């Protein structure tokens, strides 16, 4: 996947040059082996993976008078890890929060443009953001477990969504998938705040995946953690990508290079400068600005 044609995907509108809505036919998640070149509409090798599940078209976001995102066109493929990198204040977190409409909670934020989730514009009037967020889970920068027991934390989403059959089983499954079960199985009724930062973040991931969403958004999930905890989270993210579509915002370029299949580079002013396969971005970016950013000349 070192080469990738600039194509527009079937369902995407023709887009500016900064956008590459290519689908990646790569179920194994190993980018070095795969060499296929996308041809429009043929996804035979990919099966279900690689089909765009989230697409934004000319998405603009304003905080009051300030424009935080400028005409973003982006298609995020299913069951892959898509990373968003860029300097502080470039709008990558804003974009992430547009996907599950968390920006609705900020009174000053105004979103203009279209964002499709499974073919439905989530900013249509008939979309309930609560229903949307039940399909799109989120993990935040700082671990934010509720001041409840470990069990209640994981069960929270299941309870509010009335999925209370086999609750114990579902909690156990979620904790196992988040690679936390062995560490907490004997203290499920203890407060989640007694866990270490890394454990808390994995608990937050368990909480997010317990309700079996389609997409998991991660807003710098490892930035507040030490290197060991970070590597555990990274391993976990790669595993999660087998079942979920993962979108991750990160400040850490090595992290993006390690775990993601696709990378979007946002630069100051809220514009999406380049979006492509991760290897392409890190090895041979089209844009000089992206190259400067990645090699550390600015940002």
């Amino acid at each position, binding site marked *: 996947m070192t080469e990738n044609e600039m194509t527009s995907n079937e369902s995407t509108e023709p887009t500016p040059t900064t956008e590459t809505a290519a689908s990646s036919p790569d179920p194994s998640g190993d980018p070095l082996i795969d060499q296929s070149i996308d041809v429009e509409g043929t996804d035979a090798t990919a099966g279900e993976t690689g089909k765009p599940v989230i697409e934004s078209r000319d998405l603009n976001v304003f905080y009051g008078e300030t424009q935080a995102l400028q005409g973003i066109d982006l298609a995020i493929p299913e069951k892959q890890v898509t990373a968003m990198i860029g300097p502080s204040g470039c709008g990558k977190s804003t974009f992430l929060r547009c996907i599950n409409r968390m920006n609705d909670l900020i009174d000053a934020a105004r979103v203009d443009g279209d964002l499709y989730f499974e073919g439905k514009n989530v900013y249509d009037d008939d979309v309930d953001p609560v229903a949307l*967020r039940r399909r799109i889970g989120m993990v935040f920068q700082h671990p934010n477990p509720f001041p409840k027991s470990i069990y209640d934390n994981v069960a929270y*989403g299941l309870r509010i969504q009335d999925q209370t059959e086999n609750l114990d089983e579902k909690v156990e499954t979620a904790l196992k998938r988040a690679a936390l079960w062995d560490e907490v199985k004997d203290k499920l009724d203890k407060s989640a705040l007694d866990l270490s930062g890394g454990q808390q973040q994995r608990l937050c991931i368990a909480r997010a995946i317990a309700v079996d969403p389609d997409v998991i958004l991660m807003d710098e999930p490892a930035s507040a953690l030490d290197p060991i905890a970070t590597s555990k989270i990274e391993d976990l993210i790669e595993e999660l990508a087998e079942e979920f579509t993962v979108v991750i915002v990160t400040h850490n370029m090595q992290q993006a290079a390690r775990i993601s299949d696709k990378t979007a580079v946002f630069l100051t002013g809220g514009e999406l400068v380049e979006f492509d396969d991760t290897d392409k971005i890190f090895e041979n970016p089209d844009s000089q600005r992206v190259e400067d950013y990645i090699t550390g000349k600015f940002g």
Partner: protein
Amino acid sequence: MATREPETGWHGENSDVNHLRGRAFEATCLAATAFGLVSVLLLLLFVANDAFRPFSADAGWLATYAATVLVPLAVLAVYYYRLDEPAGEVAYVTSGLPVVGLLLTGGFAVLFIELLSVLEWFALLISLVVAAGLIVAHGRLRPKAALERLGVVLLTPIITVFGLPPTRFNWFVTDMAAALGLDFGLYYRVISLREAIMMLPFVPTDWVMLILTLVLPVAGVAGWFVEQRRESRRDGLAVVGVTTAAAVLGVVAGPLLGIGTDVWLLLVTFAALPLGVYVEGVLRRGEGVRGLAFPVVAVVGVAAGAVVTGALGFAGPDPWLDWGFLTSATSRTAADAGIYPAMVGSVMMIIVIVLTTFPVGVGAAIYLEEYAPSQGLTGKFVTLIEINIGNLAGVPSVVYGLLGLALFIRVLQWPQGSVIVAGLAVGLLILPIVIISAQEAIRSVPDSFRQASYGMGATRWQTIRQVVLPEALPGILTGTILALGRAIGETAPLLMIGAAASVRLAPNSFFDVASMMPRQIFSWSSELDPAFRHGVLAAGVITLLAVLLVMNATAIVIRNRYQRTG
């Protein structure tokens, strides 16, 4: 910069740093603090001296009690302080728990004497339990019907407690019943479960009802608590069993000891049960066992002092604040005057305030913090409202009294000076304070919790109900209790709504004319007899301050527990 002489150096007294202004400022601040504290302390000592009159006692009496109580307790306190064990804390708790227990016992005893019969209490509690059961059952049967549930939650308690008002539907029901020969004697309204229980031809005796509705629930909670802490079901059941046994024993033995059955049951529930659980825990852990000596020494010392002073014929002090003062009504003679009816009036006023102001204030705070928009024209309007709530908190209390007079007495024609009018007027006065403190508490819930909840796909209601309120509740309670402390001391609104200057009988209903503690104290201040102005007045002030202290201590305990867990 000039070169410094090597011998002066850059450090020490000759350096360039000038501390003079800083030290002077620190000293001024200390002086201000000391002045404030000392003045308040002197005032309190002055009032306490008037109320208790310790120096009216014989010198021998004072010396005896100093020797039997004060000195041993002081020695023990120093000993605990130097000990590493948590003996001091044990001593503190074992001395404090009985006091709190006795206060609660007294409160409930007054409740049963003045406000409700045990049967009324029983009927009220049973109907509330039935209402709660119906609500839970509805939740199980129809978990999805949210709007229906709102109706059930709001209406069920009202129907079980108050019944259905006379409506056309009820005319139909009662007419039909009468036509069928089922004459309940209640035309045009359906009676509530509470009234039905009270009309039962056969009811259990008082002590059975008290054990069912007071002893067993409290013992059950304590047992559950012990079970959680020790992870032993047997211990939890033991707590419930021993408490029930002690309660039943008292029913048999109480009359022999001259203690009323009701009082015995209350004592077992509120004083003996918590103390027993705590002492048993201390003995089991074996930490700070020596602290248990403190209350024992106190009791033995008081008893020994009584024996010695009795034998030697030393006369005790003649305090204004004594048992008689707390239990009798005011009188023309200072020696017989008491504060009991005014205390009951104050407590009933607080009940009215809690029932009205707490839901309204907390509801307003939740709306303003969680729902109200912050942007645009409506956002500006909300800001205006918030500013004005702040202003309302500063409106003089006499104005609220005037508002109460106009609204409740002139417009609604409620009886002048009644408990409900006093409660509502003073409740309006503290409403802004409750709103502001509840807002503070809600605002202090980290936004990351809300984000996490919304990110999970929770609705606003679910987020508030399951995340925000549990976190904010201790803060809300602390603020509310402090506001209630202000309410209980307010005098001006009571004067405006015509609370009685002096009443001989405690109020029996919320529409009775009553006096409250500050109002009673104000009347005593204008009595001609100097004994009233110096002695009775001081006793009343100390009583009021003691109530305030207990309320503030409760607020502090809640806040500390919250900080420990949070």
